[in-house]
């Protein structure tokens, strides 16, 4: 079984017989040696990278949705509802738009990142539906070991682009020798899994796809919004954003040390594939025609070729670049059990031992650090965390369909996909309001915008099920919070002036969850109300309010920002016991 797809270098023994390279070959060579040797892999990488960009910047861009004109029903059920009770059709343009555009799932890559689903499942001790797709990709990678890293991972491709554009030009930070860092990824993997076992989910800090998703979110999304919709719509940054961006830039800058430094040595998602490589059925092999020219060692972007030119099987991504540069066609990509005319191992000697004294020390130190890190993450989240037992602790309003808060913190991978899909940026990245534990989780900021009645995107794009994928029919009745009127500040309640912004907005959105009450009526000498005195003021109907926050957006936007009458919105959505519908996982099936 041969899996070769590289372009072989054909060198004829006699110089005179050599032909000049063809046009295509010349173009490929100009781009770079890896393009000339294994163009198929670069093409596949490009396709997946573009898929990632399209899914993030197009599928998860809600503003292609157009509301339907007028109230006209489009289905028979809608018509009959309208004729029977005068109920206007519930708008669904954001939901429909996402469904229409989702040719591939918006969160495809997040589902494929095995560490995302694995750590979430461990942390929440539950089945996470994306485990299935992660399982499939791991299975595929049994045939193409670490193929995810070489072919699929958009972060890997981005790092390749960075290395090609910048990394190869800046030489001063390059490190020549292998150092203590070469096995970091395993310890980070171990650390995140230990933390997950304690119910703390930190894999999102280091997993490949969440890292690039957040990077794109905090770098690309503001630009997209700013240029396409207006700069006033860009969500202001806070410390949480800065930390995430530094992390993302750090990942790229590591490429100055060595090409793909992050992927080779640090990425814990890659480590999962490295471990899975133990079960590989295919691998790179070198035949005895090898002339020890070292071309393959020099070109390998993954440091996966030992000094004796054989393969570090846990690191090889089967990119096949080495095959293309080998002058003697000695490299083959075959099944694991192919032993035809192989080159002798340890020649020249690699000076590598299975596990020497120093290896053992570093293994012990690394493992100890991993355990310490995992436990520290647990300690940090208990000491400086959400403090769920405390009724007075900060409780953010979560997106509609979120699982209960404890499970939510264990299941949210902090990838930021939901922010991107959310129209008007209702969802904001949390900073340190809940300490370390809530960092980058989505919270509703109703001062900024309210939840669109026709949208259910956040649940659809969530890769871990922290936000359940609710159908719009269910979502529109799912309470995310409860609006509460501040009787001291609300303009009519306080007797200051007439105002019905929140009521109008609630009616327009179709919830009809705020009604009026007459307040501050003056009475005459007989105790009868005087016509024309007092105000009508808002009263929230708790059985109808879903906590979308549209009322708060309007009160804050007009009464606080525009008119300066209030410091804060006088109607505020509040989360907490009895105010939100947050189902447990076991009652839910996906």
């Amino acid at each position, binding site marked *: 079984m041969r899996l070769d797809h590289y372009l072989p270098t054909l060198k004829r023994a006699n110089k005179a017989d050599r032909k000049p390279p063809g046009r295509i070959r010349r173009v490929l060579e100009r781009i770079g040696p890896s393009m000339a040797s294994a163009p198929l892999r670069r093409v596949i990488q490009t396709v997946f990278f573009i898929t990632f960009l399209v899914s993030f910047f197009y599928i998860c861009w809600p*503003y292609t949705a*157009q*509301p*339907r*004109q*007028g*109230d*006209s*029903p*489009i*289905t*028979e059920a809608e*018509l*009959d509802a*309208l*004729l*029977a*009770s*005068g*109920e*206007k059709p519930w*708008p669904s343009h954001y939901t429909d738009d996402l469904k229409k555009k989702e040719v591939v799932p918006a969160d495809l890559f997040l589902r494929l990142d095995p560490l995302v689903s694995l750590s979430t499942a461990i942390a929440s001790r539950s089945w996470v539906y994306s485990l299935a797709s992660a399982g499939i990709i791991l299975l595929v990678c049994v045939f193409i070991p670490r193929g995810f890293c070489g072919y699929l991972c958009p972060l890997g491709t981005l790092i390749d682009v960075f290395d090609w554009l910048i990394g190869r030009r800046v030489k001063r930070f390059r490190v020549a020798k292998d150092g203590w860092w070469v096995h970091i990824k395993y310890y980070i993997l171990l650390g995140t899994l230990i933390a997950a076992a304690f119910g703390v989910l930190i894999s999102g800090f280091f997993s490949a796809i969440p890292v690039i998703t957040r990077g794109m979110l905090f770098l690309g999304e503001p630009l997209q919004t700013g240029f396409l*919709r207006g700069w*006033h*719509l860009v969500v202001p940054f806070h410390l949480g954003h800065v930390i995430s961006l530094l992390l993302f830039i750090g990942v790229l800058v590591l490429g100055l040390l060595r090409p793909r430094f992050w992927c080779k040595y640090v990425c814990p998602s890659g480590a999962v594939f490295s471990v899975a490589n133990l079960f590989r059925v295919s691998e790179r092999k070198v035949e005895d025609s090898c002339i020890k020219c070292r071309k393959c060692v020099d070109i390998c972007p993954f440091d996966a070729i030992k000094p004796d030119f054989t393969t570090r099987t846990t690191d090889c991504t089967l990119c096949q670049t080495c095959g293309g540069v080998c002058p003697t066609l000695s490299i083959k990509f075959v099944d694991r059990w192919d032993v035809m005319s192989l080159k002798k191992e340890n020649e020249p000697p690699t000076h590598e031992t299975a596990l020497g004294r120093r290896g053992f020390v570093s293994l012990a130190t690394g493992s100890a650090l991993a355990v310490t890190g995992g436990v520290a993450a647990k300690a940090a989240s208990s000491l400086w965390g959400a403090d769920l037992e405390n009724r007075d602790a900060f409780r953010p309003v979560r997106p509609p369909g979120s699982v209960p808060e404890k499970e939510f913190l264990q299941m949210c991978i902090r990838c930021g996909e939901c922010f991107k899909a959310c*129209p*008007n940026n209702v969802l904001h990245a949390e900073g340190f309001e809940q300490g370390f534990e809530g960092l980058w989780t989505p919270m509703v900021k109703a001062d*900024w*915008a309210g939840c*669109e009645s026709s949208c259910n995107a956040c649940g659809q794009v969530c890769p871990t099920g922290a936000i359940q994928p609710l159908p719009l029919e269910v979502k529109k009745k799912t309470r995310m919070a409860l609006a509460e009127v501040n009787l001291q500040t609300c303009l009519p309640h306080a007797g200051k002036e007439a105002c019905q912004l929140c009521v*109008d907005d609630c009616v*327009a959105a179709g919830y*009809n969850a705020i*009604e*009026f*009450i*007459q*307040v501050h*009526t003056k*009475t005459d000498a*007989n*105790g009868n*109300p005087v016509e*024309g*005195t007092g105000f*009508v003021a808002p009263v929230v109907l708790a059985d109808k309010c879903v906590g979308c926050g549209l009322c708060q*957006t*309007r009160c804050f*936007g*007009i009464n606080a*920002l*525009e008119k300066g009458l209030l410091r804060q919105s006088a109607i505020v959505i509040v989360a907490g016991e009895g105010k939100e519908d947050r189902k447990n996982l076991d009652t839910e099936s996906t």
Partner: protein
Amino acid sequence: MKRLFLFMLAATLANADTIEMMTGAKVEGKVVENNATAKTLTVEFYLGGKLLQRILPYANIKAITVNGVRTDLNAPASATTRTPAEVQALIAKVGPTEPDWFKSTNLNFPKTLDLSWPSKPTSGWSNQKNAGQFIWDIINPNASRWREGIKFVTHLMELNKDDASVRKRATNEIANMHFRFFQDYARAAWWWQKAGITIEDAPGFHLAECYWRLGSRQMALDFMNGTKLVYLDGIKLLGDMGETDRAVKMAEYYDDQDAWLLAGDACRLAGRLAEAQAFYEKVINTPAAGQNPNRVKRTTGRAQANLAAIKLFELADVSKVADGSYKDSSLGYEGQVEVSVKVRGKKIEDVKITQHKEKQYYSSMTDVPAQIIAKQGVKGVDATSRATITGEAIINATAKALAQGAR
């Protein structure tokens, strides 16, 4: 074939009638039969390639627009003229019947209410204890509770049927609710007549209005002639009835801010805009002495708003606007929306949104200006569906901008 299809499509669209539901929702269909005796409409709807037929009771429908003519199904009386005898017959026939929603409406009120409805509530103001205050605070401001309100007062009347004073109050209140909430003039008149209301009583002019709305101007005027006194309600009703001269005369006799405001309204309704402006300006410029300051503020405020509305919608006529660019703004969803209107040769050339803070409802930003340009004005432009607030802000700002140029 394609041409035939287009022709048929055009033909169907030309026949599109609009059915306006009670809730304000609108739907397009084709009215194939209007059965006035059974009080039903048969309507065909063309939905997703299917032709559906539905029979709709009048009770669910507010109005229909057939071939561009709008008919209010539930207020047929205003369109026709009746003799006083016919009006009285109509009141006697419809008045004692229950509205068709009455049976299916639930009784819904706090258990803590004192259902004996004493005329002078003992404790302080409490809408959870005193029935009248419950109606005032909670029923009146919420359209969704109006049916419940009539049901509730009917319930109070039955509970206290031996107490003449409560019975009279309930009778009056039921009439009042039919009148205010549903413009159900026949029932309102019947209940007021039952309570023995004369023109000197507080709701007297409302009863006169019922007679007029039901089709007899003469009956209303005769009833009003039962008093020699001048009432504000009288000025208003005369103005609404189009008896503008009489209303103005009465207002001049009454001679205070409230009366001038009503006279202004009467003139505005009759299209006598210059006089209306003069009255409104008089309200604004003449400080009222010895009045409740809040009330003065409210009256002045209304005069200002009406004056602005005249300038906006009745003077914002592009044929009177000089060439140039005009900018103005109006309050939108998140803040002021500023619009720049370019007029040349009595035509609106361009409408641009120059500044805004809106986060959502972007569709109206392109749709509404396009409509304004197409219709060459702000009349008849609808705010884009689901973007009403932004759309209205654009319409108002455009009207204000146009009004600047209309000198």
